[in-house]
């Protein structure tokens, strides 16, 4: 009964939602409208919301205009997946250590991770480049994956840590009393229980990695067939006139898979964030 609304409350809520969605979706509407226009209608004054000759033609031509498009989308996906796996491989054990053990340097190491999460990669690009060079990673997927993962590890650690802290310590103690080794306990008891939290962190990392894979790819990779989508999109700029309609079509196509993924996983994300939320 507490969730019953009066008519004006409904009105207010839906009006609020509508306004919110207008703000959140306007750029997508714009992009979509642009993507439907033929090029000569893109630059047409005065502005018309519905232009002549609108259609899905661009969604067909992008694949031939940039034959690598599919490859870029796959790269983006692949790189984001790899970043996620590598990042999780590092952040999950570390978060467990921070959540459960008292050890010297714990505070300082945690602080270092915090500081790292505070530095934008943009200003570190030259030392990073030297590093990639020394490691011989340039022009490989690894060049985009490794630094991408490194900069997502700190946030991953913080999220996972609060999740681990919610798993009762007694479960581990019970396992120790039963003779299980620490690794066995972690593998058989802790990790299976942390799965919901790991899903959240993985999805967050994935989305971050997907949304922010421009700088590293641009700087550390010079092989077009390895490029992720955002870098690839810049190649639409090369024409006589920038083919904005195709760029928008390609962008929307590139965003779609992640959006679908999000739709499927959103339940877990809300629930998992709830678990991670700092309380009391």
């Amino acid at each position, binding site marked *: 009964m507490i969730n019953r609304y009066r008519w004006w409350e409904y009105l207010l809520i839906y009006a609020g939602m509508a306004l919110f969605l207008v703000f959140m979706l306007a750029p997508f509407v714009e992009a979509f409208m642009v993507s439907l226009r033929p090029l000569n209608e893109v*630059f047409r004054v005065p502005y018309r919301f519905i232009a002549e000759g609108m259609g899905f033609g661009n969604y067909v031509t992008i694949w031939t205009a940039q034959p690598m498009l599919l490859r870029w989308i796959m790269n983006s996906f692949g790189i984001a997946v790899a970043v996620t796996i590598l990042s999780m491989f590092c952040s999950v054990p570390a978060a467990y250590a921070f959540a459960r053990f008292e050890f010297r340097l714990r505070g300082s190491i945690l602080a270092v991770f915090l500081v790292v999460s505070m530095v934008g990669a943009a200003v570190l690009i030259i030392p990073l480049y030297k590093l990639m*060079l020394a490691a011989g990673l340039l022009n490989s997927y690894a060049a985009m994956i490794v630094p991408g993962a490194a900069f997502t590890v700190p946030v991953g650690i913080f999220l996972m840590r609060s999740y681990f802290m919610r798993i009762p310590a007694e479960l581990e103690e019970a396992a120790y009393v039963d003779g299980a080794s620490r690794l066995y306990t972690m593998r058989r008891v802790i990790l299976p229980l942390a799965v919901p939290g790991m899903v959240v962190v993985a999805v967050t990392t994935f989305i971050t990695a997907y949304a922010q894979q421009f700088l590293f790819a641009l700087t550390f990779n*010079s092989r077009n067939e390895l490029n992720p989508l955002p870098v690839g999109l810049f190649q639409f700029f090369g024409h006589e006139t920038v083919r904005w309609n195709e760029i928008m079509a390609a962008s929307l196509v590139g965003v779609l898979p992640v959006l679908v993924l999000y739709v499927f996983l959103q339940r877990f994300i809300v629930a998992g964030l709830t678990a991670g939320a700092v309380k009391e």
Partner: protein
Amino acid sequence: AEELHIVNCGSDTEPQAPVQQKHIDEWVAENPDYTVRVEYLPWEQCQAKTLTLAAAGTPPAAAYMGSRVLKQLSASDQIVPIELSEEELASYEPSVISTVQIGGEVWGLPRAFSTKGLFWNKDLFAEAGLDMPEGPQTFEEMLTAAKAISEKTDAAGFGLPAADMDNTFHEFLNFLYSNGGQVVDADGNVVFDSPQNVETLAFYQELAKYSQEGPLAYERGGLEPLFKEGQIAMYTSYAAGRGKAEGVNFGVSLIPAGPQGEHSTLLITDSLVVFKGTGLEEPAQKLIKYLTAPERQAEFDKEGGWTPIRLGTDTDALIAEDPTWKPFIDAIPTGGPEPLMTDFVGMQDIAIENIQGVVLGELAPEEAATRIQEDLSALD
């Protein structure tokens, strides 16, 4: 076979790219010891990336980039000078080769060349009742035309680019040079506070009143569709701009002359440079000389729609075939290069910031000139 890595700013979808690739393939066929890998990068990121590569000690063997970086690259000991024979040197117009010459040495080979002309929409001029069959020839005529068009038609008089992009400065230089102004004199001193410069700034400020809405959001690329749509009656562009004005009844004339100068233009070249420290300096030099040899370069220019780097019989034929080429070629001898300063980005930032001030009406022309003069002088 060793690989020559070449960074090419721009896109491989540009029309001249296949030509270049064809030439490279030919060269590789002649020099089987080497392979060539060309990496195309968007202009926005290209320079930064190439220089990051250089700073980290792994430069490409050669790169195609704006000539304005040459001074910084050579001062930083990143590129090697190109040895040209007298004959090779002589094949270039002096004003063109000057864009790559620093301290008597040639640091790169001009690859793409552009000069600017004033595009004007004949229909709009007619609509505004202007009688200028050859287009505006002086600053004053230009202002008159712009004012008339702004007042009498729906279009703006002029398309003024003033965004935070290099071509804001470039477009300004066209007018500066056409008014006899200079940024740096022959001895390398900054001379920005000259009366000519102040006058040009004042002209710009006036022009801004009859320009399209929001000049600070525009660079040249953004003006092209406006011109095409008849929203602006004039703007300056390079030769390839003609192809982008399809369907418009337009004329191209020389940049109007200021009260204290004559028709001029900014000469911009992009050039091929050879980086130091790759161990491949020699074949790289061979390759770029091969690519820029007169006949191949001409083919490249033609395909790309660039102003020909070398003048000659080909050029006359070009004009004969398409008279609109004339203003772009005629301006070459009187044109001026980009001011060669080591910190060219710094220079540009200073100039753009103050030009924007003038365009917005926030800075008086004198004030802007003094500021630019001071800041440029302080630049090391």
